[in-house]
């Protein structure tokens, strides 16, 4: 691809043809530029005229000197005062200058210190006029202020005393060659020639004194650990004091009373819980209950009457009494030695609920005259007797049955109801029967096989036998209606509800377990349940 490009001449021709300005030829261009650029430089005289202010210039005062003179004078300092033609100027023309530093500060400065005009608002033409400021001093002051600020920050809150002496705005104002120094508002006039400045330091001293008198050293109160020390003291006291042993009266009466109180409390508690747990009864239910109670009472009455009738007729010894008396002989041999039933209440023994009626019967055997009275008395005393027995620790003399009884009384092992018992019995029978059937069947089969080997007649499978078997099975299962109930128990043997069971199985399946908190909770619950059961058994 070629670039089409025309020469300058050709382009110019084109431009002219188009009615455009021709492009100037570079050489001609440069010449023109050179001639055009340098404007007429202003002469020194003109420049001076430009910079003249009020008709005077800086050069005005300078005498006409030779170049050599100027060179020779270059190194030397201008010690001799310059002979300016000082003309009296109007007051307004000379700006009022004031140095914004204290005399002490100025004293610290070296000779060739430079003062500059302080930055101020142009529009703000206050009475104080322009202020001269030394940059170094200004920086120092700023630094000091900063340090002070930091100190303040350090001791936040309790800044009572500030060293204001540094802040004294000692103002030296230079006005028309005269120096006036203001210290704390008092104006001290000095002559310009005297370099020494005599301060009346009294004033400052007074101020300092006043400040000293004002100064109250801050006492930092240390936060005392009062509480700690007191507690330690108390602890020490406690340690020092000998332990006083209180005498405890061990009278059986008192302890019994205590027990009684505890018992009462327990009773009240259980009553409350029972009341809570009891459902709200409908009037019908209430009526039924009342009737039951009345019936029971009536029964009791009748029984008593019967007994009363028997009293006249003497003692009736039947099979049960015989059995019970025999049992009594085995379990409680020492009972026979005691004569009266009342005495047994006092003597601590391992009587349990079941043992009492037995003993009564025993009594009946021995003293044929007063069986009923004894019985009556025993009936009255029975609950108390039972309870006192509960409170004592069991000795388990009677072997396994005694233990079982104890556990049952404590509700650790619950007694099975009659229906449950009967069901269990039935189940056992069923199992036995099935076992027998199986055995029978096996025997039959073996007999058959043995005959099959010897006799070829039995080659065919015996249909009638099978039929017979199935019929038997049917018969057997005719009145078989087992009660199926799925029960899930946890590791403690507690029955679980659906949700708990699910969780339990889930844990088993996944090989996980409940958290520590959960376990603790369940253990606590179990413990509570156990306690509640014990309480219930007590009452």
């Amino acid at each position, binding site marked *: *691809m070629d*670039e*089409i*490009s*025309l020469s300058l001449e050709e*382009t110019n021709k*084109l*431009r002219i043809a188009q009615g455009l300005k021709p*492009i*100037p030829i570079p050489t001609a261009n440069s010449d023109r530029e050179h001639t055009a650029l340098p404007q007429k430089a202003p002469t020194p005289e003109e420049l001076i005229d430009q910079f003249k202010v009020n008709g005077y210039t800086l050069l005005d005062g300078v005498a006409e000197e030779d170049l050599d003179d100027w060179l020779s004078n270059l190194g030397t300092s201008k010690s001799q005062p310059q002979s300016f033609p000082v003309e009296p100027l109007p007051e307004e023309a000379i700006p009022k200058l004031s140095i914004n530093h204290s005399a002490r500060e100025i004293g610290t400065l070296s000779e060739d210190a430079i003062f500059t005009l302080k930055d101020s608002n142009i529009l703000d033409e206050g009475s104080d006029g322009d202020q001269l400021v030394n940059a170094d001093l200004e920086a120092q002051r700023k630094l000091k202020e900063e340090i002070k600020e930091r100190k303040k920050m350090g001791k936040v809150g309790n800044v009572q005393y500030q060293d204001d002496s540094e802040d004294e705005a000692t103002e030296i104002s230079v006005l028309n060659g005269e120096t006036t120094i203001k210290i704390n508002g008092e104006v001290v006039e000095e002559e310009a020639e005297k370099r020494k400045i005599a301060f009346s330091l009294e004033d400052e001293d007074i101020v300092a004194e006043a400040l000293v008198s004002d100064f109250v050293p801050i006492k930092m109160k240390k936060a005392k650990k009062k509480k700690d020390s007191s507690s330690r003291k108390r602890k020490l006291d406690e340690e020092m004091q000998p332990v006083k042993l209180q005498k405890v009266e061990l009278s059986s009466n008192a302890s019994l009373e205590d027990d009684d109180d505890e018992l009462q409390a327990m009773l009240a508690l259980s009553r409350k819980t029972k009341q809570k747990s009891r459902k709200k009864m409908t009037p019908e239910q209430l009526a039924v209950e009342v009737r039951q109670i009345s019936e029971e009472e009536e029964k009791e009455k009748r029984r008593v009457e019967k007994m009363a009738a028997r009293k006249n007729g003497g003692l009736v010894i039947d099979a049960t009494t015989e059995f019970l008396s025999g049992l009594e002989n085995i379990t409680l041999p020492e009972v026979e030695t005691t004569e009266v039933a009342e005495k047994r209440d006092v003597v601590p023994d391992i009587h349990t609920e079941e043992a009492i009626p037995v003993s009564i019967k025993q009594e009946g055997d021995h003293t044929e005259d007063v069986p009923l009275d004894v019985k009556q008395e025993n009936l009255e005393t029975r609950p108390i007797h039972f309870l006192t027995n509960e409170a004592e620790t069991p000795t388990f003399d009677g072997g396994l049955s005694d233990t079982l009884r104890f556990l049952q009384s404590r509700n650790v092992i619950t007694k099975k109801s009659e229906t449950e018992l009967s069901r269990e019995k039935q189940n056992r029978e069923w199992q036995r029967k099935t076992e027998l059937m199986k055995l029978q069947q096996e025997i039959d089969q073996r007999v058959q096989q043995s005959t099959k080997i010897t006799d070829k007649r039995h080659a065919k499978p015996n249909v009638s036998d099978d039929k017979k078997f199935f019929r038997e099975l049917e018969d057997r299962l005719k009145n078989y209606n087992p009660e199926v109930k799925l029960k899930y128990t946890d590791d403690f043997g507690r029955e679980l509800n659906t949700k708990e069971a699910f969780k339990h199985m889930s844990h088993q399946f996944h090989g996980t377990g409940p958290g520590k908190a959960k376990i603790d909770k369940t253990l606590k619950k179990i413990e509570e349940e156990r306690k509640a059961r014990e309480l219930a058994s007590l009452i």
Partner: protein
Amino acid sequence: MIEVICNDRLGKKVKVKCLPEDTIGDFKKIVAAQTGTAPEKIVLKKGYTTYKDHITLDDYEIHDGMNLELYYA
């Protein structure tokens, strides 16, 4: 004097000598004369900006050796 290159990317590439104070319209006339197309048919673009006729090269900040896109309307 500046030289501006115009390329239509179809086989035509022109180097045009011009002045910065020329308008785009003037510039187009010279380009048209060099390429042999009607100046009304020329469209000059740079990026997505189409240059307008009444504005000078200087105002568009077209400098020496710059490339402009040449289109035909």
